[in-house]
């Protein structure tokens, strides 16, 4: 164990956490604030990533792909909202689960129809492909640093948007009492469509950022969606601060767990048992974290609704 | 002098920096109607929450019929006969008026862990529920869904739910709020009729009703009880006037005005 390893793992945790935050941010908007359980959130992430990968490949430029892909995903999200999702706001959570699950299935199959079952590859821009020397003897992938930067910027912008602008307040108001918000003069329908567009754009940002690190493939949204849910639940639903903190916690705990648990078990129970139990234990660490947080704080770390 | 059914001693509740109840002391005697009044935000509802067990107290004690109930969970207090109503209506919206009240009857009859016998076969319980409904003025609405009642009717059901548990002490948080003059009048009548049946701690801003009903009145300001006594005593208290009553006459009917 040396200092550099710890530092690098912290950076990894930070980067993984911020990546999760990008996804959780859109989820907090749509689910935490508009109170809509959207299982198709992961599909927006997938569609965004596919668009970005395809456009990148066609134009030969990661940046063009990212920009146009984000716009495309936002448009897709708003279309989805206009045609289907807005009919589900007024319904209970379980109907939303079923409805958005249906959309998820259709998105998956649609993507499979268009792009096929095999993963697409999306490469980071050449300028970010290599490592950066952070200090003597320690270099870190430039692309991961880039993700950290983007994550922090998005977190800041979103915080300002939701907490400090009147639009943000109206969104929260419309979510908690749609009728009253309308009676106060807010066009809740249009506002929500716009918010949904922003949420979808954030998904695409996440998809574009993660694409080069993970794979652009059908179903990529589902397992990571669960993680994003874990993040916002730990943080407290509807709280941007909470989502950020939750994301960082999950990122660091997961990364540290994957490194430290096998080491620790190796020392404690020997390599044979360690190799059996280690990976499983590392996998449930974040769930233990979540259950622990909820045991002591049943509404997450930053409860928003009182 | 009647014995105290409820004895609240130095009860404190803090919300962050705000002390909502600040060493509040209230004592309610057997069979009396005790009114708790005070400005908005004085801590009346908070005190009701604490007494009923919806909120944990930071310090102080609550004795009910001689028993220390300070840390008892809410439902156990209710089963002991310490039952409340809500300021902000809390009913079973998708159930009928009768079913609403029948549940409250069921609660205190115990033995609800019955998994096999049909609940509907219990005619007696529904008869009791109907009697309560009629008493609170909902006799004509037995089979309407609670959601479809008007605001005022819902307020009546709110009280009916608490009443159906046959409480020893009834904590009423603004039962008259949202009722028209007519219905308020009827509620006053109802509460009068409960005299002797049960003890009542009443929070209410309708001074007309308070002065007609209350045997004793406590005045809560900034979480502290600043005065306690009978109606006349309170009306004449300059401090209470300044903090709460103002020059409030008895402004409900045209009678005074005509007079």
């Amino acid at each position, binding site marked *: 164990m*040396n200092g550099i*390893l710890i530092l*690098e793992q912290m950076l990894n945790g930070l980067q993984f956490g911020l990546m999760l935050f990008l996804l959780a941010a859109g989820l907090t908007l749509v689910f935490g604030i508009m109170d809509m359980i959207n299982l198709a959130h992961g599909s927006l992430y997938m569609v965004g990533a596919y668009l970005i990968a395809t456009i990148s490949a066609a134009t030969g430029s990661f940046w063009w792909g990212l920009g146009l892909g984000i716009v495309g995903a936002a448009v897709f999200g708003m279309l989805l909202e206009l045609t289907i999702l807005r009919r589900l706001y007024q319904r209970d959570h379980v109907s939303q689960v079923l409805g958005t699950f249906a959309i998820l299935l259709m998105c998956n199959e649609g993507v499979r129809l268009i792009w096929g079952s095999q*993963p697409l590859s999306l*490469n980071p821009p050449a300028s970010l492909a290599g490592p950066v020397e952070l200090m003597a003897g320690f270099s870190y*992938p430039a692309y991961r640093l880039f993700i950290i930067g983007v994550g922090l910027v998005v977190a800041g912008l979103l915080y300002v948007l939701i907490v400090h602008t009147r639009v943000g307040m109206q969104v929260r108001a419309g979510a908690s009492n749609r009728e009253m918000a309308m009676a106060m003069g807010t066009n809740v329908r249009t506002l929500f469509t716009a918010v949904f567009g922003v949420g979808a754009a954030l998904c695409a940002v996440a998809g574009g950022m993660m694409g080069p690190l*993970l794979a652009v*493939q059908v179903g990529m949204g589902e397992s990571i969606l669960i993680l994003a849910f874990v993040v916002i639940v730990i943080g407290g639903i509807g709280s941007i601060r909470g989502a950020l903190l939750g994301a960082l916690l999950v990122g660091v705990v997961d990364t540290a767990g994957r490194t430290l648990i096998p080491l620790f078990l190796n020392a404690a129970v020997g390599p044979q048992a360690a*190799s059996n139990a280690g990976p499983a234990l590392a996998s449930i660490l974040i769930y233990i974290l979540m259950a622990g947080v909820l045991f002591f704080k049943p509404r997450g770390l930053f409860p928003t609704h009182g | 002098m009647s014995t105290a059914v409820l004895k609240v001693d130095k009860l404190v509740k803090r919300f962050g920096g705000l002390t909502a109840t600040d060493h509040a002391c209230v004592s309610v005697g057997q069979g009396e109607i005790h009114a708790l009044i005070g400005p908005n935000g004085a801590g009346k509802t908070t005190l009701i929450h604490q007494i009923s067990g919806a909120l944990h107290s930071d310090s102080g004690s609550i004795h009910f019929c001689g028993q220390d109930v300070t840390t008892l969970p809410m439902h156990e207090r209710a089963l002991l006969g310490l039952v409340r109503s809500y300021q902000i209506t809390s009913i079973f919206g998708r159930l009928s008026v009768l079913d609403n009240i029948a549940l409250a009857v069921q609660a205190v009859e115990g033995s609800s862990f019955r998994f096999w016998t049909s609940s509907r076969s219990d005619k007696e319980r529904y008869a009791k529920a109907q009697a309560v409904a009629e008493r609170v003025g909902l006799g004509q609405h037995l089979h309407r869904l609670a959601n479809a009642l008007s605001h005022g009717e819902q307020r009546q059901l709110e009280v009916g739910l608490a009443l159906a548990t046959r409480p020893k002490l009834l904590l009423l948080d603004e039962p008259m709020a949202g009722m028209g003059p007519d219905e308020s009048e009827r509620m006053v009548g109802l509460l009068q009729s409960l005299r002797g049946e049960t003890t009542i701690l009443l929070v209410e801003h309708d001074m007309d009703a308070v002065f007609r009903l209350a045997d004793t009145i406590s005045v809560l300001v900034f979480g502290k009880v600043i005065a306690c006594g009978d109606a006349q005593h309170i009306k004449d208290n300059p401090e209470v006037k300044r903090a709460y009553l103002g020059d409030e006459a008895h402004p409900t009917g045209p009678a005074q005005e005509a007079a």
Partner: protein
Amino acid sequence: QSNEPVKVGMLSTLSGPGAGLGIDIRDGFALAVKLGGGKLGGRTAEVIVADDQASPDVGRQTADRLVKRDKVDFMTGVVFSNVMLAVGAPTFQSKTFYVSANAGPSQYAGEQCNPYFFSASWQNDNLHEAVGKTVADKGFKRVALIAPNYPAGKDALTGFKRFYKGEVASETYTQLNQLDYGAELSQLRATKPDAVYIFLPGGLGINFIKQFVGAGLSKDMTLFGPGFSADEDVIKAVGEPMLGMFNTSQWAHDLDNAANKKFVAEFEKEYGRLPSLYAAQGYDAAKLIDAAVRDTKGKLDDKAAVRKALEAAKFDSVRGAFKFNTNHFPIQDYYLRVITKNGKGQVTNRTLGTVLKGHADAYAGSCKMPS
């Protein structure tokens, strides 16, 4: 009888990160059938394709359906060993022959060997044994090992260590389907091995290699992998960074035999891409079934005859010499390949030589094949 088609259940992983492998198997198989005029052993072939979604549960149910409802004559296609172990029981119980185009779990090579199971690929350990030998031969002393936490992953590292006796700097099991290797790469940087051996199939390997290069580790340590981690599908996704990576395989697209030349050329023509070893395995599986149907004259109800025909394995394998051991796993050669640029400037594999000759697996001894 013989105007009824031969039914083959092609149960493979066609979605998710492992989809690339299943698709190659399916395409390789389909190519063989197509080149044979849509027939297997002279009878019309009907290939029923199904997706196991890389899940043992789904695999089991789908196998059940193929065997009971569709009443297939042969089963093939499973990629992942854990799925294979779930698919085995219902298939064998119904006395349906299974010709594996990839999965070769040690269980079926050893104590649980079964008269109805034939591997047209290799036992899970084999490629890794070959890498182990290569790494040892090349004189590396400290090697870090990485594999996913599932049976084949365990088998792989066991196989590697059977032939590599040097120091194991670290042995890491990752989650199956893990795609981000940040944490593992950091550890490599700290452990400083002189070589790294990865067993990461499909998309896992693609991601690892990309990130390995992105983290700047390729300068400090040499990367080794089994053939499928350095096959054409991976090269297509990763590209130049893979140059110089050593890997071992029972097959290579530049192997010099007539069957292989035909296969590679036809595959490229049909699908517009170079075949991978999975495609080669799928192709061989079809050829093996073809031979068995032919040699039994289409009388597939005579199970003993079919088994005998399969055991004889009278077909021209694209990998060259091929014969079955007593446990129905192949005895074959394993080659060393390196990734280079070919004459046309394409990044691709070049065969360097043979690492293991006429190699059999380590489990055959414990197999008491029922007769």
